[in-house]
């Protein structure tokens, strides 16, 4: 009798542990959220500086050949392999992206236009640009786009002959520095952002893999109050 109870108890615990693993791994797991809202008061027009980089690979995950964004964590001073970040509502956000990845022509050249940013421009190595023609040369690696805010910024790339950084997060190697600013909504919410350049190498039309995976080429900007 005692043996049967023990088996039953063990089976119950095994099932409970399995369920807990699924909940924790699939529903509560995932990339961390980098907090850029800490210490800033919402709706005050606070100026927030977000620092990112996009790499030709990421050597810190189980998909080392996937291109990926990284976000700098201001609290720890380290790069996080994530595409989730939070900013205060009603603030002025300036995003700086260190572009280490090589070029891929846009599938729709329309996304070569900068929209939704202050002045509808971005600054590539401090030079203002409003459109980049990705068919005219090796010049666009990705885009940073928040569809709900009409933000779309083509991410410039180093030249075709550049020897790209091989270890992520990149700390050296040829890259471009691109900045742009936009205002966050006054109300809290979660805003999807994504890359629109077909950079998912090895997937049909380049739109699979990292393009469809949070933590690589798409994520969310959480606007908090």
């Amino acid at each position: 009798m005692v043996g049967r109870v023990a088996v039953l108890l063990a089976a119950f615990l095994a099932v409970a542990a399995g369920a807990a693993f699924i909940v924790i791994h699939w529903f509560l797991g995932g990339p961390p959220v980098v907090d850029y809202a800490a210490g800033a008061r919402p709706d005050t027009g606070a100026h927030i500086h977000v620092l990112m980089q996009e790499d030709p690979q990421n050597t810190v995950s189980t998909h080392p050949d996937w291109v990926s964004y990284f976000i700098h964590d201001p609290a720890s001073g380290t790069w996080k392999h994530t595409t989730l970040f939070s900013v205060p509502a009603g603030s002025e956000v300036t995003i700086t992206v260190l572009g280490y990845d090589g070029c891929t022509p846009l599938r729709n050249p329309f996304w070569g236009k900068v929209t939704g940013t202050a002045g509808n421009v971005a600054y590539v190595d401090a030079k203002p640009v409003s459109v980049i023609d990705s068919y005219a040369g090796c010049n666009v690696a990705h885009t940073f786009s928040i569809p709900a805010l009409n933000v779309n910024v083509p991410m410039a790339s180093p030249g075709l002959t550049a020897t790209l950084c091989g270890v992520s997060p990149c700390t050296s190697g040829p890259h471009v520095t691109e900045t742009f600013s936009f205002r966050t909504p006054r109300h809290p919410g979660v805003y999807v952002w994504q890359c629109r350049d077909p950079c998912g190498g090895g997937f049909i039309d380049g739109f699979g893999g990292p393009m469809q995976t949070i933590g690589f080429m798409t994520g969310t900007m959480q606007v908090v109050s």
Partner: protein
Amino acid sequence: MAAGTAAGSGPAPAGPDPAGAGEARHGLRIFLLWLPLAVAADLLIWLALGPHLPPGTMASAAANQQSDFVLMAMLAAPVMLFVLVYFGYALAVWRQRPGDETDGPPLHGNVRAQASFIGISSVIVLALAVFGTVELISAQGAGAGQGPDPIWKPAAAGQGTRSGALQVQVIGQQWKFTYRYPQFGGFETTQLVLPEGQWVEFHVTSIDVIHSFWAYQLGVKADANPGVDNVAFTRPEHLGLFQVHCAELCGLWHGAMFNGGEVVTVASFQRWAAATRIQLADVTRILPPYALTYDPTVVPQMNKAMVKAGIAGANGYYYPPGDPVQP
């Protein structure tokens, strides 16, 4: 158990009764119970519920769909009420009484009831088939995609397009619709603005996976398939805002693939189109020439750029035909 049977062959009343008298009485009672309910329900649907049925009356296709929904609801309500009335009548009249342990009479079928059921059902279904076909033709495809060569076009006067309508190309891509206006220099924009009272000819396509363009309040729903020009018509009839959703599961952010649109006056539309054409001139210059299908892999400039970047596979595609290599 009280004697009871199917419709039109009710229980034998107590005492002698001429054959069929009970059947007629039950049938008449059910009919008299059903008739006022059916009339009331149809009046309610027609006058009260109908004007609020989706998708509204913002555009011709939407109004046609709404009137179709009203008609079908008015046909369905009496049928449903007949079932419910019959069910209620059977419960009330033919239920088992306390102390009644007898069996009911054996059933041997009822030709009149069966013939009526088959006949009425056939008439309703065939009539709806004819009605649906006529509605599809007379409503210029009823807002649905008709493929690249539509046979039901609006007889609108005008120049420049095969239907004389405003041409708008809808381009689905993960995860946003963009819109090209070929009659205004071919600019592409994320805004969908349409003039009131003018036929619109949507050319729906995709540049990556399959999507579905669903302009809800306009009554338009058309598949967006890569390499396919899917044409749908509607005519906005009221000013206002409408919503566009993707109605085909298309990837991670399918649920976020929506945008608003607006129907404006013809004069406002002309001003908007002229201003947008100028505003987007810098990006319009680098777009491929307007074409009814929009396959980037056959755009010569793109192929050259891909070859230059060293990422082109066979046939000008991004990756060799053997791909995708799944993880």
